[in-house]
């Protein structure tokens, strides 16, 4: 049975070694032919703009790799500084307030000049010409509520906020230029404040669970849900002009590509953007298709729109269809992609699990010989386990960059404790009397381990591996946040696009995969159980 385990470990490593280089984007600063890495934040407009950049670059003959929904501002900044991504759509107001920590002063031009100067000096990053529209924060209420309360502007909230519940994106709540600043500028104090993801915010306000939300001025959902945007009558929010933000390496290596993106400057106005957002958020059409149309509408297309609608025309979402009946169809239509995501997911799990087994099983065996170290070691592994998965993944970025490698490392760290703990206890509890008698009759320590302890501990060790594997299948969905791919991709994208069918097309296969892994390893547990030990086994 120890043979079975080592064979499994060896198999997983071989698999990991064969597939990892292909799966991880080769990041080589000297390679001029490498694809340009275009990233976005996880909400619809950011997806659209990144896709616009990508298609426009591809139309000019550049190879592009997409990192849609890569992360929020802080994560993107880290990745830009580390050279993990080349360009993503950013807003000048976000750069000024959230990154530089300065307050608004002057108009659009002044803010653009200020962030350009600071980003250049601090990180060598360059703000390319703004695209031509502003997407500022918009504080919105249900139209009927606003009408009955007689609120038109933010200053009108001051007196009545103590009766209202606010629902804001986590991003907005935590920032000086967000809720705190707003509250200070207008003297607003809500009765209660809830943290809500983009995906559920509109439903929450429609159902009356919250009264006030933060939205974006170009948001397609504002009209769909019949909301009123309150005027920023004290000019609290800075201008939020959208523009491509380019990393230092990108500028140095690909000036020709920078030139191409510069041509987007001033071409997309607010009405074009709002229409495009509506098509994605309200009509539920694919980002690829809508981005191509947007490019065509502003005169920068070139047949791309037709091509894109043909390739993904079948995938048009029927917004009125019930989720459960739309799901099988969507999964069948995207079966090629789904298979790729499942394989990718399995690679993440198998590689991390294999590495964890290779480390934790021998360590568990050694700990039995040195029990004084066992407490400390298990505690350290336990602490690793308590780090929230998303935080652990974020810690990996400065060290390993983005993609599959940091995800595998994080999953590896998570797998250590269950395997280590079970190996240690399994070995200790493996018939101590028989071990004692074997020793007394002249078995060597190695013989005791190989012929008594490991075979008896095998089912316990296997149970630890099973626990780790099931945890890993679940946690690996979060790896999509750092660009590792897998079944988390549709979940992250679906959350950003408020598309429940897309979320489920990742979540359901992930759950099924977890059940299958659990079932398969439960079988393996029975198979490795030694004869003669417990009834009903084997």
């Amino acid at each position, binding site marked *: 049975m120890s043979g079975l385990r080592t064979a499994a470990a060896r198999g997983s490593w071989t698999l990991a070694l064969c597939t990892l280089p292909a799966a991880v984007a080769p990041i080589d600063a000297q390679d001029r032919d490498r694809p340009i890495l275009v990233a976005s934040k996880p909400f619809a407009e950011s997806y659209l703009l990144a896709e616009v950049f990508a298609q426009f670059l591809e139309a000019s003959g550049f190879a592009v790799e997409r990192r849609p929904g890569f992360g929020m501002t802080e994560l993107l900044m880290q990745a830009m500084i580390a050279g993990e991504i080349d360009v993503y759509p950013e807003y000048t107001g976000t750069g000024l307030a959230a990154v530089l920590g300065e307050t608004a002063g002057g108009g659009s031009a002044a803010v653009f000049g200020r962030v350009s100067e600071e980003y250049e000096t601090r990180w060598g990053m360059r703000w390319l010409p703004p695209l031509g529209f502003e997407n500022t924060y918009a504080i919105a209420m249900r139209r009927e509520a606003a009408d009955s309360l007689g609120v038109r502007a933010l200053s009108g909230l001051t007196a009545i906020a103590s009766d209202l519940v606010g629902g804001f994106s986590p991003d907005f709540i935590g920032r000086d230029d967000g809720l705190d600043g707003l509250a200070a500028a207008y003297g607003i104090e809500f009765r209660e404040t809830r943290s809500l993801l983009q995906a559920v915010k509109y439903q929450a306000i429609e159902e009356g669970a919250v009264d006030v939300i933060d939205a974006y001025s170009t948001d397609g959902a504002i009209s769909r849900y019949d909301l009123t945007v309150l005027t920023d009558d004290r000019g609290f929010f800075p201008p939020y002009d959208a523009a491509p933000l380019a990393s230092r390496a990108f500028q140095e290596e690909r000036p020709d590509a920078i030139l191409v993106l510069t041509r987007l400057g001033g071409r997309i106005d607010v009405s074009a953007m709002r229409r495009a957002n509506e098509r994605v958020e309200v009509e539920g059409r694919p980002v690829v298709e809508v981005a191509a149309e947007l490019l065509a509408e502003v005169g920068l297309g070139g047949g791309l729109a037709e091509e894109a609608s043909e390739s993904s025309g079948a995938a048009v979402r029927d917004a009125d269809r019930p989720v459960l009946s739309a799901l099988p169809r969507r999964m069948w239509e995207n079966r090629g992609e789904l298979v790729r995501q499942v394989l990718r997911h399995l690679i993440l799990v198998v590689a991390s699990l294999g590495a964890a087994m290779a480390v934790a099983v021998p360590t568990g065996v050694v700990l039995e010989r040195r029990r004084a170290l066992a407490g400390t070691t298990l505690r350290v592994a336990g602490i690793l386990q308590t780090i929230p998965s998303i935080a652990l993944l974020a810690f990996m970025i400065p060290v390993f960059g983005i993609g599959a490698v940091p995800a595998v490392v994080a999953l590896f760290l998570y797998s250590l404790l269950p395997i280590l703990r079970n190996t240690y206890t399994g070995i200790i509890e493996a018939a101590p009397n028989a071990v004692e*008698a*074997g020793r*007394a*009759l002249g078995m060597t320590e190695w013989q005791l381990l190989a012929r008594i302890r490991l075979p008896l501990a095998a089912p316990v060790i296997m149970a630890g591996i099973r626990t780790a594997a099931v945890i890993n299948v679940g946690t690996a969905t979060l790896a999509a946040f750092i660009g590792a791919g897998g079944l988390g991709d549709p979940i992250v994208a679906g959350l950003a696009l408020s598309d429940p069918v897309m979320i489920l097309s990742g979540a359901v296969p992930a759950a099924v995969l977890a059940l299958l892994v659990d079932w398969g390893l439960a079988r393996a547990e029975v198979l490795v159980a*030694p004869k*003669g*030990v417990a009834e009903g086994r084997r």
Partner: protein
Amino acid sequence: MALISVEEGVKRYGATLALDGVSISVEAGDCLALVGGSGSGKTTLLRAINRLTRLDGGRVLVRGEPVDRQDAVRLRRSIGYVQQDGGLIPHWTCLANASLVPSLLGRPDASDCGRRALGAAGLEPGEFGSRYPRELSGGQQQRVAIARAIAAGPDILLMDEPFGALDAITRTEAQDTFIGLRESAGMTACFVTHDMAEALRVATHVAVMREGRIVLQVPAGELVDRATGYAADLLEKSGVTL
């Protein structure tokens, strides 16, 4: 010649003195019972003989040679050992258990040795050889443990409360089997017990231990006459009439 001798053996566990200058000697063919209450040091003394325990002072000689100068694994393979709970390997058949030492020694006839030993211990090898330990009663398991201890034909046998966990009838049967086995093979033995009656029944010599010291060491036949104080108390507790 003394096959086993301990000279001024001392063993400390932290602040407690488990063996406080103990000397014993077992002549070839004799059977010594180490008798005493729990914590008297009798098991520690037994385990020092095959180097399961290392002494802090004094020395142990087996077949005339200090055990510290012998290879521990080889030494243990040459000495039979039985412990109270049997300590059978649960996922091995009884025959595999019984054949353990011959197979460790690389003997090609290991299985035959195991079969013979099972038979000698009173278990029909054809019936019991293919069973797993948990399918046997406690008494049968202890017989497998004895078979395992003698399968390679050792000249020395060590036993730690070998019959302690058995009920009265099974115990008497197992004792009789052991007495027959030992006498026919001419084995030298040393065993630990807290039961004076068992010591008198099975052993040729008795050493009474208390708080890490030997308080009395006599041939079994002279025990009743020479027992005083603590040894006499033990005799009385074991139900041996004086």
